[in-house]
């Protein structure tokens, strides 16, 4: 067992656990959007940042991918952490303004509005990547992937056209932390010509 501190409480974890796993095991609250036990952690949303302290030294790390280590001193709610979470949520309020989940999370951090302009009022996707990971790692099909990079990044099937590779299993819709995938499924799934006559068979 590995012993360390979270918010000045002594906790114990198995080797190989992450700080997030341990914190949740003990009931410490750490927000996440891109994390799910079923898939490999990706450290994308950065909401789960925690602060490691050692004397005057301190550093922020993503708890979902940070492995536990003996004697570390973890803090889950400091001013630096709140600053990171506040800006992420404020930016998400303008990026995926249609998401009730994000509005609720933001409200928990005292944010009701955003200083940034809203360009796409219907958007709900914040590119956490859970859908692409579940499709590749759990379903084993990799029907969808992230496309492009940077601010142009999006989720889609090849050439952004519906694909027959998708079997409409619905895993991506289920794992999506907002309702973004629900509205995209028609852009991903192409019904094969033979299936049109017998949509329920197979």
């Amino acid at each position, binding site marked *: 067992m590995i012993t360390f501190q979270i918010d000045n409480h002594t906790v114990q974890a198995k080797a190989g656990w992450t700080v997030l796993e341990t914190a949740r095991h003990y009931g410490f609250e750490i927000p996440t959007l891109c994390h799910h036990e079923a898939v490999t952690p990706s450290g994308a949303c950065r909401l789960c940042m925690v602060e490691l302290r050692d004397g005057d030294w301190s550093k922020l790390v993503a708890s979902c991918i940070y492995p536990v280590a003996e004697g570390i001193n973890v803090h889950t709610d400091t001013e630096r952490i709140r600053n990171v979470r506040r800006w992420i949520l404020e930016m998400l309020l303008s990026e995926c303004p249609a998401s009730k989940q994000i509005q609720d999370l933001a409200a928990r951090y005292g944010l009701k509005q955003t200083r940034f302009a809203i360009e796409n009022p219907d958007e709900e996707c914040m590119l956490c990547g859970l859908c692409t990971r579940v499709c*590749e790692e759990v379903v084993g*099909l*990799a029907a969808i*992937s992230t*496309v*492009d*990079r940077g601010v142009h990044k999006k989720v889609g099937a*090849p*050439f952004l056209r519906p694909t027959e*590779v998708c079997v409409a299993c619905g895993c991506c819709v289920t794992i999506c932390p907002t309702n973004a995938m629900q509205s995209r499924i028609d852009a991903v799934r192409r019904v094969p010509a033979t299936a049109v006559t017998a949509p329920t068979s197979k």
Partner: protein
Amino acid sequence: MTTQEASIDEILERYPGSPEYLIFLLQDVQKSYGYISPDSMQLICDRTGVPESQVYSVATFYQSFRLEPQGEHDIKVCLGTACHLKGGQRIMDELKRRLQVEPGETTPDMKFTYTSVNCVGACALAPVVVIDDEYYPSTTVKKLEKQIKALSQD
């Protein structure tokens, strides 16, 4: 710009059929055909065993890959820091006015495609424009106009 030098089969045979050669194959196909078509992408998937969505992800992640046919002449405007300070953006604006298409797009007559690039490492020549792999140093709007006129006529 396209130098049809190798058939797709020949390119596919150049490397072992493993995912690590995906980028090599995309680069070689693009070099021969000027862009990567859906058909050639499918062949690359089959060869490397990488799912199509992931090949598409790679092809759209890297800036050098083109998924549509390109213009006969390829104009790259350097927007490295030195070129930026010496007016590279002015050249971009002028190209947009003159060619009436956005960066990365091709003119309807398929003559020109223009893009900006992040530093070609020829900072002493700023602002630099690279047309069909040839460097044009200290480019001004006037020099550019001349060059485009010359290329439009051949």
